[in-house]
């Protein structure tokens, strides 16, 4: 029988591309033979724009990189500038940063897993459950900085505002409730035979390939590489907290889903420890309004929810960076997509793509 391959442009308009991402997929019936990812539909030239802004003015840009986890992006950028200018951050600010970053990780993983299950075809329900928890955290962020999205909360040398007095009690209440709701997610999803059969053994990213592709974050850990910057290259005050790094074995969609779920619980542990230890004190170091870091370049990286988020800054001694480069974890994880899906079914392509957890604003910048 004579057969032909079909080439389909999935996206930039497609219900499950998580933004304006386009894949040119060559199909043999239902089997994926070739995938050609195409980025750039959301390119806003942030890296170039940043060269004309002062160091403080760039912080809102970082909000718009990965808008699902803005706090982590703020954190990474401020860390880079502080490293460049040699600024010492007050103790209390460090704690606040860690707390909001781990809250942000929970938010990000809730959304990632929710949309992954949505891509699996469970229309809305798990997503709505996760959305409920996310809403509580976003309310807390609103209490903190007045924003529910694109927070612009951190400043070079600290954070913009101190915790309001009602914040910590509200956070404690959330933390008390969270394990119960977490158990609810596990009950709803973990034992579901369809989810298991759809995710186990699909979209495999072998260990060696994950390392070669320079993948990071949950994608790397799911492939069995025990690598977490919070533990292996501690920045800020992460060396003070006790937490485990969940690691997968096969590197399939199931492992990526499980790693994210487990990480939520570890973030929960970190927040618990942090709110017990948080000291009183100033929240921002004395930093001049127009910061002029010394000439030179710096690379600072953090473990963002999606992976290793790095900022590379080149300073020429003026008020604006000479070069501002972002190592976007989603972008680099996405480069492994092709190898993960070739030979699988088209349905697996969607699920694998969802399990990488990209945010297109970060991919295209």
């Amino acid at each position, binding site marked *: 029988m004579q057969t032909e391959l*079909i080439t*389909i442009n999935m996206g930039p308009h*497609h*219900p*499950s591309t998580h933004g304006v991402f386009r894949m040119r997929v060559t*199909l043999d*019936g*239902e*089997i994926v033979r070739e995938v050609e990812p195409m980025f750039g539909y959301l390119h806003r030239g942030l890296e170039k724009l940043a060269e004309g802004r002062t160091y403080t003015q760039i912080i809102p840009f970082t909000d718009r990189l990965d808008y699902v986890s803005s706090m982590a992006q703020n954190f990474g950028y401020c860390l880079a500038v502080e490293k460049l200018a040699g600024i010492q951050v007050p103790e209390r600010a460090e704690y606040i940063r860690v707390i909001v970053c781990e809250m942000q990780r929970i938010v990000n993983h809730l959304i990632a897993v929710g949309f992954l*299950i*949505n*891509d*699996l*075809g*469970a*229309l*809305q*329900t798990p997503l*709505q*459950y996760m*959305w*409920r928890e996310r809403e509580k955290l976003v309310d807390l962020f609103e209490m903190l900085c007045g924003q529910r999205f694109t927070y612009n909360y951190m400043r070079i040398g600290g954070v913009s505002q101190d915790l309001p007095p009602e914040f910590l009690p509200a956070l404690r209440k959330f933390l008390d409730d969270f394990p119960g709701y977490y158990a609810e997610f596990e009950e*709803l999803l973990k034992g*579901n*035979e*369809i*989810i*298991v*059969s*759809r995710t*186990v*053994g*699909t*979209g*495999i990213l072998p260990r060696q390939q994950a390392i070669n592709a320079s993948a990071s974050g949950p994608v790397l850990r799911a492939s069995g590489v025990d690598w977490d910057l919070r533990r292996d290259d501690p920045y800020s005050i992460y060396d003070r907290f006790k937490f485990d790094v969940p690691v997968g074995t096969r590197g*399939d969609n199931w492992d990526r889903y499980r790693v994210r779920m487990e990480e939520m619980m570890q973030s929960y542990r970190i927040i618990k420890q942090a709110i017990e230890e948080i000291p009183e004190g100033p929240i921002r170091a004395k930093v001049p309004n127009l910061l002029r870091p010394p000439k030179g370049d710096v690379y600072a990286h953090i473990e963002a929810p999606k992976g290793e988020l790095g900022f590379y800054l080149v300073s020429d001694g003026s008020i604006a960076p000479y070069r501002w480069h972002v190592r976007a974890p989603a972008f680099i994880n996405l480069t492994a997509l092709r190898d993960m899906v070739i*030979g*699988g*079914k*088209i*349905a*697996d392509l*969607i699920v694998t793509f969802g399990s990488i957890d990209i945010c297109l604003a970060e991919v295209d910048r």
Partner: protein
Amino acid sequence: MIHLPECGVETFSSWGRDPLESGWAIENFWAHWGLFGVGILVFVLTIVMGFIWFERRFIAPMQLRIGPNRTGPFGLLQPVADAVKVMLKEDIVPAAADKVVHFLAPILIFVPVVLMFAVIPVQKGVGLIPDLNVGVLFLVAVGSIETIAVFMAGWGSNNKYSVLAAMRSVAQMVSYEMPMAFAVLAVILVSGSLSVQQIVVEQSIPFALLLPLSFIFYFICALAELQRTPFDLLEAESEIIAGYHTEYSGMKFAMFYLAEYGGAIAQSAIITTLFLSGWKGPFLWPGLWFIIKVFAVFGVIVWMRAAWPRVRIDQLMGFAWKYMLPLSLINLFVVAIETIFWDPVQWWLVPVNIAIAVGLLSGWAGMFKLRGGAQVESQG
């Protein structure tokens, strides 16, 4: 015990006569057809609206939402608002579409849905031809026409996503016809009749209890025929946009929507009549029992949609051919033996059959694995 249906010339004349003899319908043959023809259309359209409202209101609390509540009391007028909106929409036909096929598909998909109601009795003797002596055969035959309509829609749209959905539809629907037919066959063996009304009359015990395996298989196959979760691969939104009706808009799209919900009513009604003893029930008016049961069956379908993700195409096919088909054959064999040796409608057979069903389902499941391996398999 098994009464073979009477064949031959008499068949046709008996179509009109039986409902008349049951004493409810009007004496005039044409008045009967006119009344029930219009009645069925009105019934289908009203219940479709009811179903749409019911689904949206019922799924909303499961998804932590409220659901439509702005139009009319409890949002009851939401389907009306939807209908008005959809009728006012522009009808767009893709330039490269096969115009005739594209035009015919939405009609062809709705017709069998309405036809199925011809043989379904709302209560004893109430229906267009409720006592048709090949009623069950008619249901299975008419129900499978839908495959052609779906394929026409997918092919005629000249859209690659639609073609993918069309290919899936043929594979899926043809595969699930088989265990479905075997499940129905077991019912026919026990009741000894092909007439849908007679099957309900025979059900002193609901066949869902007496033939649990047939009931489960029919229910699963009905989900596949309806393209509902977890078998909604034809319109898998996250994969192939809207599947075969991606390129339809306006009233043509509404026809697909109508057919989808009409099909849901039809399958719920068939499950009700074949397995849940139709209109039978205490206290209430029989017709009301029928509608309550139809909504209950649909409620379970909606519940599944709220809770479950979708299976993959190879898992779908594997499930039909490797799991359901052999088991439904075994089930048919068991039921046939029971029919030969005992009058099958006996209470003590209920626990026996449930035990057999549980044993077969779990025993076979031990040998049947869907998980993983697809990537490796297809590369070989």
